[in-house]
């Protein structure tokens, strides 16, 4: 079924008006029946789940039996003041999101509802790392939706970032409740690699640029823990500002560690050290405003080689370090102790393969060796084994794909590496190979062979070759439109709808599309289908 603006029983205009303006009175009592309002054939409901999680859902009179259950992305678990811009201002909220882009662009929700689909989403009772709460809320919401719309036959779980983890988790633990899965820039895997990624970046940053920055070990007292996080964010922003100011000159922040100061005395530019930290963690060397190949007028030849990779890491590092701070602190709270451990990490091995590719920006092998020597001598972080053991339960997945699944992902992600998607791809390749082997074995007994259905399609937002714009001063223009395939989950309504369309069509036809049809559908919305495309796996898993 095509999701389009074509006339349906319900007009798009009517839905737009409803979704944008009608406020449904939500019951305040947990687990009460949802309050619903119907206008212009569209029914909107809102309620509060058993654990206090607000939810909402919408369907029209032409509801076709398929509902999209949305899981929103990560929201910080603490308020962040405006003084910490651009991270703040943020006020903690549990507001329900029934679909993608719900806070900025209602067109996805509207078009789906107009086409006869239902949409539903919870705000979850807890923010931060909330897999447990999200799983409970999603299961409950499916039941609630089905009670209100008993003709529901198909549930498509979709989510963004951390929400994609919730969608996958729902499919893994309750396959009976889910028929298809759409994961946008998924944000977790089962081997703690994402937490390690954040920890590596924070630790390298601390070890070179400001030893007072925290990697872990947050207080158990809520107020103190909150203040520590905010203080960390403040320090990170301050150091990033100083590194930004020293990009050309190579100047180091005055807060540099003794090791950092030693490197400074040897003439190693701070940008080379920053890039080394980014590379050892796996931070992308292309960012929203730095394509890595362009340079400003007068410096077009050397800028991409000498400066650009560090600038891109700097731009990506803000979100990486700040979300890393918030998520590690929250992880420690939930796990009951320190969760990041790098006592056995060989950072020199991590950057060995990258040293040549970014030789000028790293200031050559000798500088890289110097940086790695300083890091080797820096104090390491030791985790609490009991806490580490709890992490898979908090953010863990098996990655097993049993339902038709579409993933879409930016190649140069800002702070949730595309490596996660590579993990899904590699894991599914093994899973599918095993399924084929099992089918062959079965065929030897039964005499009949059925090729197992392939249940995974990955669509890439590949990073464009050139998109950087420069100011008259020769610095990247941060006000320019971000390049394709960069940033965090910067997917358009058209891309979300294309994924939804592919999924609904697949469920009707019993198999995911392949080949030219899929290639064309992806290309139409600026995505790429390339089954052989790979991105690096997590540094910690290499």
């Amino acid at each position, binding site marked *: 079924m095509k999701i389009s603006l074509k006339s349906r029983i319900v007009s798009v205009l009517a839905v737009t008006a409803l979704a944008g303006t009608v406020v449904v009175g939500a019951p305040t009592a947990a687990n009460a029946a949802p309050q619903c309002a119907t206008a212009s054939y569209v029914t909107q409901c809102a309620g509060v789940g058993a654990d206090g999680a607000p939810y909402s859902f919408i369907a029209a009179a032409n509801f076709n039996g398929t509902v999209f259950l949305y899981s929103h992305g990560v929201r910080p678990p603490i308020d962040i003041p405006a003084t910490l811009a651009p991270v703040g201002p943020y006020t903690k909220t549990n507001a329900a999101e029934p679909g993608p882009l719900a806070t900025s662009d209602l067109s996805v929700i509207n078009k789906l509802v107009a086409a006869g689909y239902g949409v539903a989403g919870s705000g979850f009772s807890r923010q931060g790392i909330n897999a447990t709460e999200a799983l409970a809320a999603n299961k409950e919401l499916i039941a609630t939706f089905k009670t209100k719309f008993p003709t529901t036959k198909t549930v498509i779980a979709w989510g963004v970032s951390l929400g994609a983890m919730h969608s996958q988790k729902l499919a893994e633990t309750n396959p009976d409740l889910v028929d298809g899965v759409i994961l946008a820039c998924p944000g977790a895997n089962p081997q703690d690699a994402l937490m390690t990624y954040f920890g590596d970046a924070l630790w390298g940053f601390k070890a070179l640029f400001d030893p007072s920055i925290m990697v872990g070990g947050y207080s158990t007292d809520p107020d103190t823990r909150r203040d520590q996080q905010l203080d960390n964010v403040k320090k990170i922003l301050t150091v990033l500002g100083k590194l930004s100011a020293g990009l050309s000159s190579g100047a180091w922040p005055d807060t540099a560690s003794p090791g950092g100061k030693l490197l400074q005395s040897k003439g190693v530019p701070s940008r080379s050290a920053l890039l080394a930290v980014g590379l050892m963690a796996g931070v992308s*060397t*292309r960012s929203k405003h730095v394509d*890595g*190949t362009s340079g400003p007028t007068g410096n077009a*030849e*050397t800028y*991409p*080689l*000498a400066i650009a990779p560090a600038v891109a890491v700097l731009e990506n590092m803000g979100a990486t370090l700040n979300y890393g701070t918030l998520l590690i602190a929250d992880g420690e709270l939930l796990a009951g102790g320190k969760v990041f451990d790098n006592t056995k990490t060989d950072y020199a091995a991590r950057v060995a*393969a990258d*040293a*040549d*590719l*970014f*030789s*000028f920006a*790293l*200031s*050559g*092998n*000798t*500088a890289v060796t110097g940086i790695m020597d300083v890091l080797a001598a820096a104090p390491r972080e030791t985790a609490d084994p009991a806490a580490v053991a709890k992490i898979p339960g908090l953010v863990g997945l098996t990655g097993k794909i049993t339902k038709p699944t579409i993933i879409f992902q930016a190649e140069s992600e800002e702070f949730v590496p595309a490596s996660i998607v590579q993990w899904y791809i590699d894991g599914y390749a093994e899973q599918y190979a095993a399924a084929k082997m099992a089918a062959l074995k079965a*065929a*030897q007994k*039964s*005499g*009949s*062979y*059925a*090729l197992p*259905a392939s249940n995974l399609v990955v669509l890439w937002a590949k990073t464009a*070759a050139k998109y950087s714009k420069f100011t008259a001063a020769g610095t990247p223009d941060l006000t320019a439109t971000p390049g394709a395939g960069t940033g965090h989950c910067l997917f358009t309504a058209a891309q979300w709808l294309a994924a939804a369309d592919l999924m609904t069509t697949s469920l009707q036809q019993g198999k995911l599309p392949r080949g030219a049809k899929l290639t064309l559908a992806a290309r139409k919305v600026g995505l790429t289908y*390339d089954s*052989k*495309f*790979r991105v690096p796996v997590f540094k910690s898993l290499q």
Partner: protein
Amino acid sequence: MIRINRRKLITTSAVLAIAALTVAAVPAQAFNPSMADPGITGSTIKLGITSPLTGIAAPGYSKIPGAMKAYFDYVNTKGGVNGRKITLVSKDDQYIPTTAVAKANELILRDRVFALVGTLGTASTKALTASTQLSKRGVPSLFVNTGWSGFADKKAYPTTFSILPSYQMEAKIMAKFIKKEYTGKKLALIYQDDDFGRDALAGFKTAGLTFDTYIPYASGSQALPATGAGWISKLKTAGAEVTVLFGVSSASTAALANAYGAGFKTQWVLGSVGGDATTIAATSKNYVPLLNGAKGFSFAPAPTDTTDDYIKKFQEIYTAAYGTTQTFDNNVVAGMSNAFLVVQALKAAGKNLTRKGLISAIETKGSTFASPFLTPLGYSAKAHTGATGYWIGTYGPTGALTPDGGKYTVYTTDSGTGPVVESTYKRPAMPENGL
């Protein structure tokens, strides 16, 4: 769902088994376009190259794709290879590894080339090989223009073939020469501080040569004015009597020009990559005479050696393509030699050309290919090594490198601990019509 029954499975297995047994006996079949690898039809072969046409490494190197194209065009006028005419798609990567990745992706996915040829630079070639998953896709990467020894490792780079002797080989041969000619002199080494230089350091170490002064520089930093001045200052302080420069030609330019400006004299020994007069002249023709008296290394005949059959033919082809407006130099010889070897490989792969067949042909027959090089080729089923040695010469005031002793004395070795020995290699004669 594809359903087949058990009987069909058994039948299929039997057919496959018979096919495996009889494949050698089956006569060559007609080319089937629907079964072909990308970039190939019954009458064409599309190849791709990404290299620096602009940017810091463009001077000199930008001539390589044009030289390759001139040779391919010449081959096409002779009917092509096994009836197929060759087209070369050339992309500019500015010597930036990330750009090289993007361009290689364009060549493979958009232009759908049959193979990559002559990609240039260690970092760029490593980056594009890894990022585009050449080996996983089975895309041949023929005769990469870098001497990093790692590319000869078939296990790590199963579809990539070197063409240049490795930097380790060069350093070992250079070390033997220096030990013999400059005993007791104060030695200095300026080297590119990446895999290029790391290979050289490994070769010098293997050969037991140590320097009094080591000056590393980050690749690309030679473009900054202060870099060359800094080297000369260090060389002066160290009193370097013999200075080896293991870097690209733009680094040689920076070193020679700054030495001249500072009135500093040393015996320059230039690695093969950095001793290109045309590249140096691209910065300023005034710098070319500064090469005079410097020692240099090469594995191909000198571009000025018109007594050499290959050079003579290449000059003829190049002049026919571009007239006399462009200098016939080392870069042209490099490009045409590269294209020449590609043609030998395509010929060896036969009419039923496939990517796998091409790789297999180089592995099994590559060491016997005709080539302009004065050293043996090291291709085998175990290693993807290209040329394996060097001759030593002296630069004259025009930048021409002529062999010491008036003839090419070629030394050969390996990238390991093998000895440096004088080569007895007899180069195959230029094939008829230069094909």
